[in-house]
């Protein structure tokens, strides 16, 4: 099977590699050492493999690696470099939003992408936004707490308070 050369940035660092046409971005990233991108179902149903591709949270298991050519990818490891990402990480830790942690990377990336675009959500909107990321441990409450707390800072900065 033919392999194609692709070039992309992951967490602001350049990666050059080859991928077969049918290889998923998930497999490509994990093959290149980004083991923080988790594999939970490989069918786009659980959200553990979520990454941000081209400023959009996507499920990397159902995205072809070739689609990331010349694009920007962020995984949870890169969140420390971004203000909102770092805040979300801290908030997840402090709220006890993490149990087994397997959904956490995907959950944080979905939350980051959502808050980038919707800085003033209420709790119900947050729940809808993360409903493509399954979590079996927490019952979601503390995850929503963690995200809402970060969004709450935006509320304090002058947005409408909507609980």
């Amino acid at each position: 099977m033919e392999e194609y050369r692709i070039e992309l940035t992951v967490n602001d660092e350049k990666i050059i590699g080859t991928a077969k046409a049918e290889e998923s971005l998930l497999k490509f990233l994990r093959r290149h050492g980004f083991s923080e991108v988790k594999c939970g179902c490989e069918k786009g149903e659980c959200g553990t493999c979520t990454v941000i591709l081209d400023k959009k949270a996507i499920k990397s298991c159902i995205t072809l690696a070739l689609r990331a050519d010349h694009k920007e990818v962020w995984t949870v490891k890169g969140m420390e470099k971004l203000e909102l990402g770092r805040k979300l990480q801290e908030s997840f830790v402090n709220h006890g939003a993490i149990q087994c942690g397997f959904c956490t990377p995907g959950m944080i990336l979905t939350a980051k992408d959502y808050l980038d675009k919707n800085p003033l959500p209420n709790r119900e909107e947050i729940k809808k936004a993360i409903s493509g990321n399954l979590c079996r441990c927490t019952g979601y409450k503390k995850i929503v707490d963690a995200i809402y707390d970060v969004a709450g800072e935006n509320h304090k900065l002058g947005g409408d308070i909507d609980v």
Partner: protein
Amino acid sequence: MSEFKIVGKPIPRHDAWSKVTGDLKYADDFTMPGMLFAKVLRSKYPAAKIISIDTGKAEQLDGVRAVLTAKDVPHNETVTKFGQSTEVGKGFEGLYRVLAEKKVRFMGEAVALVAAETEEIAEEALDLIEVKYEPLTGVFDPLEAIKPGAYLVGESKSNIIGEFGCQQGDLEKGFAQADVIIEDTYKVPFVDHAYLEPEAGISWIDDYGILIIRVSTQVIEHFRDVADVLGLPHNKVRYIGTMMGGGFGGKEDITVETYLALLTWKTKKPVRLVYTREESILCHSKRHPLVMKYKVGAKKDGKLIALDADLISDAGAYPYLSPWVTLYATVNAAGPYCIPNVKVRAHCVLTNNTFTSANRGFGAPQPNFAYESIMDELSHKLNIDPLEIRRRNCLTTGKALATTGQVFKTYVALPEVAEKAWKALGESTECKKDEGRKIGRGLAIGLMSYGRMTFLHDSSRCYVRLESDGSILIRSGIPDLGGGQISLLCQIVAEELGVPTSRVKIYHSDTALTPLAGTTTATRQTYMSGNATLKAAREIRNRILNKAAEILNVNQDKLDLINEKVIVNYDPSQYVPLVKVIQVCNADGIELFCEAQFNAPSTMVPDLSNIRGMTFPDFTFGAQAVEIAVDTETGQVEILKLVTCYDVGKAINPLSVEGQMEGGSIYGMGYALTEEVIMEKGMTMTPSFAEYIIPTAADVPDVKAILVESGGGLGPYGAKGIGEPSCSIIAPAILNAIYDAVGVRIKSLPATPEKIIRALKSDYFRK
């Protein structure tokens, strides 16, 4: 100790940062040079004879390093254990067969193993293995399988693999005195654990010929079982347990490890095996479906007088932990109520369905659904408020469990938790008249043991060492499935030795290097390993204080160990730094390490036909209440409010305890409303998250967790276990609320919109 500094505080977990940054390496994240990839060939029939297996073509494929079938397994048949080191005799330990031989018993049973240089080659090799089957009729309904003359799933003359009973009083006399009798049959389905991390592991042989398996498991003690399969001495197999991406009982039995061990032993190469999601749902254990026939009698005032329960449990194709789970169900069958006349019988029966075994709750959630539905029925029939009828009947301190007669010596919080949960629902939600939705409320209470059955003679060990710089190292075999198990031990040690948790490091889950702490199952780790850790830490604390008393020249009982200082408690200006005391201890040859063992109370194996007396060390009591809306056009249920209230004894980390209570509620909510592994004649029809529906964030209410801390538990600082109890009583609360809303009693889980609408419009569907 006067006041807690660290215990009882909602502090972030020890493992939280490594999870949030993605640094933590789960079982699937570990690779080794020269590693091979394993795949498992699985039966496509639920019941069939294996006529022949031809591996020739697969073996010849380039890149294939090993193809193994049953004939290549040194000891293909052993017995299922789950870490117990005591002998409990027959009736519990069933056949564990590594690879199918002669006959397959369920769809997805492992038939052959492949190791190859790439995953793709391994997959291709599976297609080249030629297995000739002769399909057999099989049996898929436990009620059929239990009949004489039924198709035999295994090699014995009966499909029944376990029979349990409890009785007290005189059932006939009891029912004769009853003013109202309710008879009903309740059913619950197969349930998947649906942990997000599929089963995974990697194995290799170290420099000294030791077989090492790094695996996501709740039971590192399976190293013994793997050694038995290979015919190796136990000390030649080493397990390294990884932080699990969830377990819920599904990683309690052996999963990938034996396959890895066989392939590594054969090829002498590192081998990695990761299940796909489909494979996971198809092949790992399920929660037991039960058919529960109940007859309950009560007096006019609501007082229960007689209970007769007959439980039939579907064990699936192999025993695994079915006998144990059925014993739990038997003990739990009469619920948390005082009932003078009781008879419970339970059978577990082999079928050609996927095998069933441990799943969070371990036999408690099933009967809880039945008896709490019946309590609700009684409350309506007798026109007694749901809280009041439970108050009149529930166990209180000093009373005995109606099934086994085990007396509760510690505080029984049932009346308190029931009232708190019910009242916390607050004002009723208003529903617009034209909305087509109806509001309802439901309550359920329950109990579940924490700690293993006492006849298993359970123990846990822990090692604690104070370093010369005042930092602390813990070694414990404890597996962490995400519940905060390792973090809890760090917190206990930090509290006892007066250091911040950041000064404590734990090394865990290694059968060669960490003292065995037993399984992370049975809601036992806070209790068992918490106590072992507390014992070790207190021993060292005592040595430190003893030496400090000499240094400060004050009585030891006037000293406290806080913020890395030993202080005189009536005059904190007098102190000696911990590091200084350590120096003196080291110079004087005082040991600043300790390995301690905690033993649970133990009993003899009970008479299984009439189980009496103590079977568990203690129980956790809880109540859950919900308010829901039912859409009368679609049957859709929305949970508006969900309150969970448990006596947790002492919340060592309230964040973790709330996490268990919130997560457990939603785990149980899935059981109530959506989750069912549908099997049609042994074929799994729901092998993905598109068909097996677990709750998403959009489906759930904000769970309100109310923690009662009676201090009455047997764990450290009076803690009780909460992991499994937390999920075991929500389903009937939700179903009782459905009845309250629309007058429909659903007697089989899950209460899907289809079932509700069919019951609501039964006239229409009859036409």
